[in-house]
């Protein structure tokens, strides 16, 4: 069976390029604001793409937000 060659991704190069880019600060901002900070015991509401409102417990939010952000071009 024919299998198309998969491009190998140099993860370190990708990480280095991202962290060295002029937008590197967004990495810190996402890390700090979505994964750090005081977490109160409560539900939060996030508007995503100005369309959906997602009600999630905080712990679940972190995973969801990460996926949403990384899926954008």
């Amino acid at each position, binding site marked *: 069976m024919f299998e198309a060659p998969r491009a190998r991704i*140099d*993860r*370190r*190069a*990708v*990480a*280095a390029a991202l*962290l*060295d880019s002029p937008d*590197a*600060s*967004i990495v*810190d*901002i*996402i*890390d*700090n*604001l*979505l994964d*750090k*900070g*005081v*977490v*109160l*015991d*409560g539900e*939060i*509401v*996030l*508007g*995503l*793409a*100005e369309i959906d*409102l997602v009600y999630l417990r*905080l712990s679940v*939010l972190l995973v969801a*937000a990460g996926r*949403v*952000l990384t899926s954008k071009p």
Partner: protein
Amino acid sequence: MLYVYALADRVGDISDLKGVRGESLVLLHVADLVVVAGEMDGTPALSAATLHAQDALIRTLHARAAALLPMQFGTTQPGEGDLVRLLERRDDLGSKLEKVCGCDQMTVRVLAATQQERGTMMPERQDAQAPNDGDELPGTRYLAARRRGAAAAPPLLQGIAEAAATLSRDVRIEPAQLGGVAGTIYHLIERGRADEYRRVIERAAAAVSGVRVVISGPSPPYAFA
């Protein structure tokens, strides 16, 4: 509803500052804490612009307070009473404020270079597809390799982190779960010592073959909130 930005020991005048939606900010006094919040009808959309705006506000507040704990993005409460009840149940916030008083956060992302290190940190796909040894399924071996990798990560990070021990009031080390980045080190250091910190960390990283670091900061103490 209240959108909560940060907790502080005390903050001066903030009448010149606006929230992420341009709303006026309010200071609420709860026991020994000061809460910085904004009144909103709904919550702000999750976007790069909103994240930048909130981070900029937190940095300004951090500069005006001796001790500040940023809230996680998206933190809301229906009203002041709900917020007060919630905060009154948290007996850890005072000690956290004491710890971050007069301090900045520095962040070090550690990039490991060699194949050996990459294999230890994050096994490549072919590891999982290698022939079976004994009764272990490929998936079992893959997860076991990842577990070993996670266990092996700290010494590399620990060594770099310890280089700044004399400058550090606290440290938090997070081994990475993604390839390329071996992990992230967060240090809490006295304000005004960022340049000294950078020199120490860069010297420590240069002594380790195949490792590179990306240092950012100073920033508010998000990782210690």
